[in-house]
């Protein structure tokens, strides 16, 4: 039974439809990420759930009740803003206490809960500071504490880590996941960062143009993207448009003119349609001479055009009769420009998308 569901929702902004007949549902206690490029509608979806935006059509159900017309302040959802939106004229304590005081709690109870929450986010002792006197990471934690202390029925994050530097980002996302699981709080999380979404989510919805392209567990999306858009967004840099396919047992035989390729079938329920083959630069392999040991088929001869050094590996642009492929490969002796090579497509890494 889902706790939250958007049913056939449409949202317009400046007479432009951002979401149309949009559907989404989420079970209690889960963390769902909305992932996509800017302008894909993920933030609109989040703001609709929060109540900052109104739907033109459709319904937003929460806990079995129709929340479509419930005003923001009556929803009891915690919202963590990208800009943190801390009240600059209030101390850390007063920022966190803001929601509790609106709920007319006794001052002693407010103090107890704010103090405990500040300890959870490791900010004990910072009560009297103004937001301007905090670092980015500390502000972020105040924002989270402020949203959590009201014991919200749903927690909403709008790109909460995008203003932090890389190290802090990793620490904070672990922290967010820890708090979310500790309190068992249902959460919707918006980000354009693939790694961030995958690392903390139970479910990821990849969005494009106001539609969900794929909604699944992070590991399923990572291995088996459903569409070309999802594949490109999560780093499948190489594509081959096949013109024929033939299902044989656990494999699929693909053809492009006279060329034949093999791809492993996806597990049941992950979709197996489409004629577009996709593979990550990390999963392609290069060999110096044709017919390397143990490999038959799924290869293409090519020429190294450009070689760049990425630190952990080298990246090559290899020209073949099916176009240019990007290959990342770790090696001692890199290939040089103009060298003849063989590109190998491991069949279990070659996936078909729509």
């Amino acid at each position, binding site marked *: 039974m889902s706790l939250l569901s958007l049913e056939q929702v449409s949202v317009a902004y400046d007479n432009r439809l951002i979401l149309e007949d949009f559907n989404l549902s989420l079970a209690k206690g889960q963390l769902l990420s909305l992932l996509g490029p800017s302008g894909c509608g993920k933030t609109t979806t989040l703001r609709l759930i*929060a*109540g*900052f935006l109104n739907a033109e059509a459709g319904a937003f159900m929460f806990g079995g009740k129709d929340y479509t017309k419930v*005003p*923001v*302040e009556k*929803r*009891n*959802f*915690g*919202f963590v*803003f990208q*800009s943190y*939106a*801390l*009240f*600059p*004229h209030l101390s850390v304590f007063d920022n966190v206490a*803001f*929601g509790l005081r*609106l*709920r007319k709690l006794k001052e002693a109870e407010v103090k107890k809960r704010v103090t405990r929450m500040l300890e959870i986010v490791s900010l004990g002792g910072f009560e009297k500071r*103004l*937001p*301007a006197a905090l670092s980015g990471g500390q502000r972020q934690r105040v924002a989270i504490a*402020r*949203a959590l202390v*009201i014991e919200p029925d749903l927690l909403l994050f709008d790109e909460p880590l995008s203003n932090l530097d890389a190290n802090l980002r990793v620490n904070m996302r672990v922290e967010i996941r820890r708090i979310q699981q500790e309190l068992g709080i249902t959460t919707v999380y918006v980000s354009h960062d693939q790694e961030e979404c995958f690392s903390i989510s139970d479910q990821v919805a990849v969005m494009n143009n106001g539609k969900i392209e794929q909604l699944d567990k992070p590991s399923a999306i990572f291995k088996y993207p459903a569409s070309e858009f999802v594949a490109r967004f999560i780093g499948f840099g190489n594509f081959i448009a096949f013109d024929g396919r033939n299902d044989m047992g656990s494999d699929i035989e693909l053809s492009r003119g006279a060329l034949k390729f093999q791809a492993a079938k996806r597990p049941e329920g992950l979709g197996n349609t489409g004629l577009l083959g996709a593979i990550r630069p990390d999963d392609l392999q290069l060999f110096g001479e044709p017919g390397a040991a143990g490999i038959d088929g799924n290869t293409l001869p090519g020429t190294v055009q450009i070689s760049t050094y990425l630190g952990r590996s080298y990246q090559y642009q290899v020209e073949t009769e099916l176009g240019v492929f990007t290959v990342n490969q770790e090696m001692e002796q890199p290939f040089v420009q103009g060298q003849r090579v063989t590109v190998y497509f491991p069949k279990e890494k070659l996936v078909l998308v729509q």
Partner: protein
Amino acid sequence: MNKKALYLLLPGLLFLAAFMLVPITLTIASTFVQDGKLTLEGYLHFFRDGYFNRILLTTLRVSVVTTLVCMLLGYPAAYYISRASARKKSILLALSIFPLLTSPVVRSFSWMIILGKKGLINSFLVNIGLIDKPLDILYTPVAMMIGLVHLFLPLIIITLLGVMENLDHELVRAARSLGASPFAAFRKITFPLTVPGLIIGGILVFVGSLTAYTTPALLGGKERVVSTFLYQNAMTLNDWQAASVIAVIMIVITFVVVGLMNAWANRLNPKG
């Protein structure tokens, strides 16, 4: 900073020194000298004089009321403009600063036509039978206040608009998401964060009202304010010593009020 860049500052600095600092210093110095002796007599004379005290009081009253009315009228107007769509905003902004584009003389004459004994307001009120005799509005402190509010309202609106447009609207959303009604969010977030703008706008209006000459001179009739009294002393009575003393008193009042209100605004401003 590059020392050569300082030369860019020099012409303006010299101009200010020659035409502002020197005359002001001389003016101030002259007020403490009488018959070649250092004395406070010039000031004591004024503060012992009931006529001057009345003028000073009228001036302060007119300035304070003008400031309060401008705040009261300007704040909601600025709030509305700041929340309007871009197109509407530019139209409203143009309308609200339009009065600034006409000369105070022209404006004051318009108010004379409206406020006079046979003016629009009195004719209307007499015609509908609400009053039998025309009211005395023109040539009273009330007329000055009306003229000054009209003069300075655009100023406070523009000042407030700057502050309100800088207000991050996410803060209001944050307050709402934490359970604040629209009114509570305004009271706890929007208002406290825009009060410094209200104070700064208030300073501008207060100082402007305190030193305004044309509007009180034309709408005040025989009622004097400090600036018109100063003019009278200097130009009609040719008593430059008295005029200088009045000028210094005005400067001191201005500085004290600006200083106090600025300190207050700074204390309210969390970013210092």
